[in-house]
């Protein structure tokens, strides 16, 4: 039935087909109208409600972080308001030039308010995250915020948000203990535990120190409010019938830090030197002061990204590593500070008595074909254990160490917390290292080194072990008190923002840390001789009227520069309440450090650091009766 070109189609056929076409399109139209009826009449209420709720924006009110106080109630860490300018991507309109207009914004110095690549990133991200504010301008100045606020109509999709940021009014003071907060990282966000805890992009979270350790206490609980918004994201008003949930501020913390003592400690520790200092109360493990040098100003982490990046680069790339908390993470050979461990082990295992004297020190010691020097070539002669500790004679401890053996020395070291983490409540603590034949052989297997008894010579005078300043303070304090080793800690109390006590730190004895009474007496006498004896190496730590014990140490460092200078001081010796340990890198002899610790101890007992000799004497007489 092929049609010729000129053949008209059969009229009836055309009419039928037209009718079919009209019926088909008519039915399709009726179908659509039926659907309209369903959506607009049957589901009207539901859709009406949904359309209402569209105008309502759920706003998360970020909780303010809890404050941190020192032990006397001085406010050490607080918050400040910080303004953010952000993009609400779903409010952007197709074809709108907000992007370009934002780029055109310049401040008074004619620099661009927003960086084009950063803005591009935000707009790209906005394609995926349409309903979350994405920050364009961080920590904006008041002037910038006012400028934007006045022009919200010109920038549909742009909003301003107030956040609170950490503020450290004392700057570097105890900054390594407090740590800092920072924006949650992509890695952290990829970790489901953070997501489950309710963190989201742009949140600030404790990244170091107490801020990190006690994040859950400080962060508080975010609140929610519902507000009506218009097309430009301008908040028209709160919606009264929707229930609000107020944000509750995080808990505050009373730390064990003593601000005044901390100030003295920071002042006593020279800025130019690297190292760490820890003051601890041996009776309960409270850390009274914690210094790590070079200092770090945690306020830089609250800066906006560009400044932060600059500052961050300067601290992160700094070869002196100011980010490193040397007080708990810095490991150094203990040097002569370790001799008290060797001596205690010798006494405890009855290898020596108070009166045992070894071969005289002529400035060195022959062991096999090796000649091990004493620190002074003049020699110390024949010494008892107390004198050997007072004068820090190496030759005595070479012989003593060989007699006792590393297993027994290390056993006593472990009693006082050396060689393992103490569990201080800030992250990053290092365990240090105690060395014996097994450890030595496994550790240096790759280098092909084998243990020999000659190693004992070095190890018994503290060259070869690794300790942190915190461990030294804890060990020496426990050794002096003989009442056990308490877990060092910085948290004293957790309180509600209103000041109600929620938690108190439960003091924890982590190790027996105990010597036989007669041995303890010998050790304490030796400690005292170091500071106040005629040949004592730690005279700088003396406090008039107070029985101070201590020990110097010079840790050889592998770089072969000047030795690291150790000092640890403890007082009062009859019932110690403070033990201060410090290491100063490449500062030479421990005597330097002793002076710094002396300042801390004098402040602690006398309330002054700059006493003249006359005043010192007067103070001594006033206080002296009891000792």
């Amino acid at each position, binding site marked *: 039935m092929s049609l010729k070109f000129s053949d008209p*189609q059969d009229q009836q056929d055309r009419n039928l087909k*037209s009718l079919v076409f009209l019926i088909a399109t008519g039915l399709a139209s009726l179908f659509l*109208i039926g659907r309209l009826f369903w959506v607009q009449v049957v589901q009207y209420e539901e*859709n009406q409600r949904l*359309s209402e709720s569209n105008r309502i924006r759920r706003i998360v009110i970020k909780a303010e972080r809890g404050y941190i106080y020192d032990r006397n109630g001085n406010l050490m860490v607080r918050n400040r308001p910080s303004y953010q300018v952000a993009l609400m991507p779903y409010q952007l309109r197709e074809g709108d030039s907000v992007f370009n207009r934002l780029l055109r914004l310049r401040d008074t110095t004619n620099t661009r308010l927003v960086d084009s690549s950063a803005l591009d990133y935000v707009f790209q991200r906005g394609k995926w995250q349409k309903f979350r504010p994405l920050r364009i301008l961080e920590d904006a100045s008041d002037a910038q915020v006012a400028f934007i606020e006045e022009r919200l109509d010109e920038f549909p999709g742009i909003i301003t948000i107030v956040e609170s940021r950490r503020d450290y009014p004392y700057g570097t003071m105890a900054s390594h203990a407090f740590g800092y907060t920072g924006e949650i990282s992509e890695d952290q966000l990829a970790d489901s535990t953070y997501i489950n805890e309710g963190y989201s992009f742009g949140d600030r979270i404790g990244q170091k120190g107490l801020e990190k350790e006690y994040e859950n206490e400080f962060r508080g609980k975010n609140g929610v409010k519902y507000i009506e918004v218009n097309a430009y994201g301008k908040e028209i008003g709160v919606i009264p019938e929707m229930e609000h949930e107020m944000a509750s501020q995080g808990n505050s913390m009373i730390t064990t830090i003593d601000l005044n003592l901390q100030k003295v400690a920071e002042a006593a520790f020279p800025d130019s030197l690297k190292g760490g200092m820890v003051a601890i109360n041996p009776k309960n493990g409270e850390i009274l002061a914690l210094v790590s040098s070079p200092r770090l100003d945690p306020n830089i982490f609250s800066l906006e990204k560009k400044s932060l990046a600059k500052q961050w680069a300067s601290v992160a790339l700094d070869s002196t590593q100011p980010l490193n908390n040397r007080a708990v993470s810095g490991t150094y050979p203990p040097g002569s500070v370790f001799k008290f461990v060797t001596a205690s082990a010798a006494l405890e295992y009855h290898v020596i008595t108070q009166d045992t004297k070894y071969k005289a020190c002529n400035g060195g010691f022959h062991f096999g074909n090796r000649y091990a020097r004493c620190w002074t070539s003049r020699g110390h002669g024949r010494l008892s254990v107390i004198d050997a500790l007072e004068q820090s004679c190496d030759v005595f401890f070479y012989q003593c160490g060989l007699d006792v053996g590393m297993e027994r020395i290390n056993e006593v070291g472990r009693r006082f917390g050396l060689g393992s983490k103490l569990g201080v409540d800030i992250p990053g603590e290092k365990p240090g290292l105690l060395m014996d034949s097994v450890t030595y052989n496994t550790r240096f297997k790759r280098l092909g080194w084998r243990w020999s008894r000659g190693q004992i010579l070095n190890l018994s005078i503290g060259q070869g072990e690794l300790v942190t300043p915190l461990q030294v303070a804890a060990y020496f304090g426990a050794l002096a008190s003989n009442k056990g080793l308490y877990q060092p800690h910085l948290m004293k109390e957790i309180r509600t923002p209103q000041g109600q006590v929620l938690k108190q730190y439960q003091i924890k004895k982590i190790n027996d840390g105990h010597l036989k009474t007669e041995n303890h007496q010998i050790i304490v006498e030796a400690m005292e001789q170091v500071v106040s004896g005629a040949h004592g190496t730690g005279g700088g730590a003396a406090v008039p009227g107070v029985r101070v014990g201590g020990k110097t140490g010079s840790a050889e460092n592998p770089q072969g520069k000047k030795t690291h200078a150790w000092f640890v001081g403890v007082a009062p010796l009859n019932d110690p309440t403070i033990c201060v340990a410090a290491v100063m890198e490449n500062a030479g002899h421990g005597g330097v450090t002793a002076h710094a610790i002396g300042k801390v101890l004098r402040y602690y007992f006398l309330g002054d650091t700059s006493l003249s000799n006359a005043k010192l004497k007067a103070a001594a007489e006033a206080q002296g009766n009891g000792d």
Partner: protein
Amino acid sequence: MKDSNMQLVKEPHRLDWSLITVVALLMTIGIAMVYSATASDPVAWYKSFWFRQIIHFTIGWGFVVAILFSKPRLWYNIAYPFYFFTLLLLMFVLFVGGESSHGAGRWIGMGLFNIQPSEFAKIGYLLVLSRYLSNTSVSLERPFSFVIPGLLFVVPFLLVLKQPNLSTALVFSATTLVLFYWAGLRLPDMFLMLSPVFSVIAAMSQLAWGGLMTTVFVVIWRRKLPAFISASIIILNVAAGFGSFMVWNSILKEHQRSRILTFVNPLRDPKGAGYQVIQSKVTIGSGGVTGKGFGLGSQTNLAFLPEEHTDFIYSVLGEQFGMIGCSIVILLFWLLMLRGVNICQIHGHPFVNMMVVGSCTILFFHVFVNIAMTLGLAPVTGLPLPFLSYGGSFVMTSMILVGFLLLLRFKGEEI
């Protein structure tokens, strides 16, 4: 011409003012909707979407007038050259590359105008298929009658599918089916030809596929087609059904299945693909029977509905004018069909008939798919609503089709 139907048309050889009125009404509604959807844009009036749309319409009417000055024969004559030209354009965007809007390369930049070759292809394909089928009928009894129109169809179909522009590919399919019907394909036969496609979908459920196959058998038995055709249809159905079943259950991975299901039913993914559809449904639904009133749509004014002035313009109408306004627009489109198809009763020339029905099909297919999409019944494929959606390219296509309808009524005899 002495048919009783002619009473409907007192003077056949004149401009169809009622069709012009229907189109003008739709355009007025369209401009009002584009205005209300974009009124809050802080731009000068002469840069605004509604003003630009008026310009598009003006140019569109220019096209109509130009077409009215032409002779129907001209379109018959240029059908093949025009068709091959559009194929070249399609290949140009596909292989040489055009500018991309929304990720799919569909545009060619021409400085002042951006042209979208797939829009030209709709016209070109309409012309060429109308011309071919006005000389040759098709029937399932003569399977080879489908070879040439099939080739004419497959080439542009694949080219736009590759862009990827599924919606335009579907426009070609709809046009083809209706014109085949006009060229002699019987409805049961059309069902049989389409049944393998149905099989692919029905394979999801054994019951549905069983029902489909029963129907296919009944139709085949009633039609008494040649045995090899009947057998081929059954084999194709079985192959399509099993193939689809195997691919769906064994080859596709869970996320691929999920993507297909989400494409068919965007409501499965309310935050992603379904967001626009849900917002659109809510927008229309919140209009109720009478609507919130012109300019009072909170959904549109508060910008919760993306693409509101283009693909989702119908939702803007629904919110502000409710079911009444929405139904009137549907009615206007159906009146357009009525006025169009009416030409087939005046003029008997197959080319005129094909062109008329094809134009009506293209327009109505857009109307149906677009509205179904805004109501959450169809995938978001990006088909605009004729005369209402903002956008230059498609306005031109629509106006050319309107021009054809007016021309063929005016001068249909002259061919």
